[in-house]
């Protein structure tokens, strides 16, 4: 398997949050406490969808939605900072993976992540997007990519991703399809 990279296109995302649900179903995240004062029925989310404040100019409304999850940085600061070496790169696909057994829950990864992406489960251990590495190994698409109705999520090699992004940028400026 080649190196994998992820691109979540904010121009195409429509805030339907299907990716979040697909991800939760794939990873079987239990809901957090649903009773008592500390109730948090939302539970662990690996993907979060945020909306940027809209810009309105005449009839045009510009509001991209951005889904943030682990970006699988090549030179990841979380790997450097982890005191118990619980975060590691998959040698084949360069996907950032977490060893739950080793994680001690010090949250150093959260304090160095440029995107504020790490989330923590009920035991305080780090959970991170693993790009559905088991599905990728079977030759399937990741759960979020397969579920996204707007085709806003792409998981491919970095070269393909940069080509795709270049094409999208050109399309946006030119306002049409590039052949």
């Amino acid at each position, binding site marked *: 398997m080649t190196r994998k990279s992820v691109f979540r296109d904010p121009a195409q995302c429509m805030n339907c949050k299907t990716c979040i649900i697909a991800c939760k179903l794939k990873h079987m995240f239990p809901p957090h406490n649903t009773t008592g004062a500390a109730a948090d029925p939302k539970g662990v989310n690996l993907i979060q969808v945020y909306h*940027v404040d809209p810009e309105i100019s005449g009839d045009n409304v510009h509001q991209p939605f*951005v889904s*943030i999850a682990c970006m699988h940085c090549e030179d990841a600061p979380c790997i450097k*900072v982890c005191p118990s070496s619980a975060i590691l790169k998959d040698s084949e696909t360069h996907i950032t993976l977490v060893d739950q057994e080793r994680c*001690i829950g*010090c*949250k150093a990864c959260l*304090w160095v992540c*440029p995107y504020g992406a790490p989330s923590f489960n009920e035991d305080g251990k780090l959970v991170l997007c693993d790009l559905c590495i088991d599905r990728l190994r079977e030759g399937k698409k990741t759960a979020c990519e397969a579920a996204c109705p707007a085709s806003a999520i792409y998981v491919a090699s970095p070269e393909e991703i940069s080509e795709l992004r270049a094409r999208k940028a050109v399309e946006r400026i030119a306002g049409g399809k590039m052949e």
Partner: protein
Amino acid sequence: MAFISFIEGPLLWFSFLFFAAGIVTRFIFFSFVIIKSSKPRNPGWSNTLVSFLRLFLPFHMAVIKKPVYAALRYLFHICLFVVPIWLAGHIALWEESRFDWTWGTLSDEWADWMTLLFLFIAAYLFIRRVILSGIRTESKKEDLLLIIITALPFLTGYFYAHGTLDSIAFLGDNIGTIHILSGELMLIMVAFLFCRTRLNREMCTGCAACELSCPTGTLEFRDEGRNRIFSYLLYQCISCGACVNTCPEKAAELRHEIDILRLFRPTSRETIRSVELKECEQCNGLYAPGPLMRKIENVGLKITDDYIQFCPKCRRSNYLERIRVSTR
């Protein structure tokens, strides 16, 4: 000699009964507190029990982190229990007593060597605590007293058995009395002996991984004002050493301490450390423990990008802002 008969009779009874009563009281208070405690992430009683029993075996991270110190500690405690219980001289007294109890004896040669070993380690621990500045600032006077009280029966017992000090008038005559008295003092002290986690001020970064690993909820932290405050409920500690195993900075240590008042305050928490929190430069909110951020920025990794000064929320909103500009 009315005094010696008092020490050998009523006072000995008193110390043994005090010792037993202390243990029972401690156990009752401990059970009360541990049942009452509401640790949100309770890993289960079997897990707690296993982490408690692991303390007795040298198969955990604390040994790997400080092998020499851990080995000395194990030797010290083995000698501490084995010598007084299996010493031939003590068993002879038990046989003479009204209980007429007897059990296997330790050979005198072994007892001598173990006593000497014990005294050397005790001296090492004492000197270490006086000299090393990191430990000295964390220690109270009681901590030094604890080592002295523990070592005294062994020291006097060794002199008593060998007659080393017989030529010195007062000590020579009364060494047996002093030995019994110090032994009784040690027994009484056991009721007030607690185990407590110390977080080294220079090494601890305030990441609170110890809080997460604690199986009984003894260690807790809360972010209060500008500080993260670690509090400790002494009675809940089962001295399992989970915090020592977990601590990535080797800052957590389990130590004994004598605290007389603490025996009667089973549910009161005490603050053991306070760490200042770092302020986000954008929203002025407090987010991460300061020492940890300083370590990330200056010591090990030197990650000095601008974003490190912002809280995760601001980092996200900055990223969103970049996206907005790029998709416009």
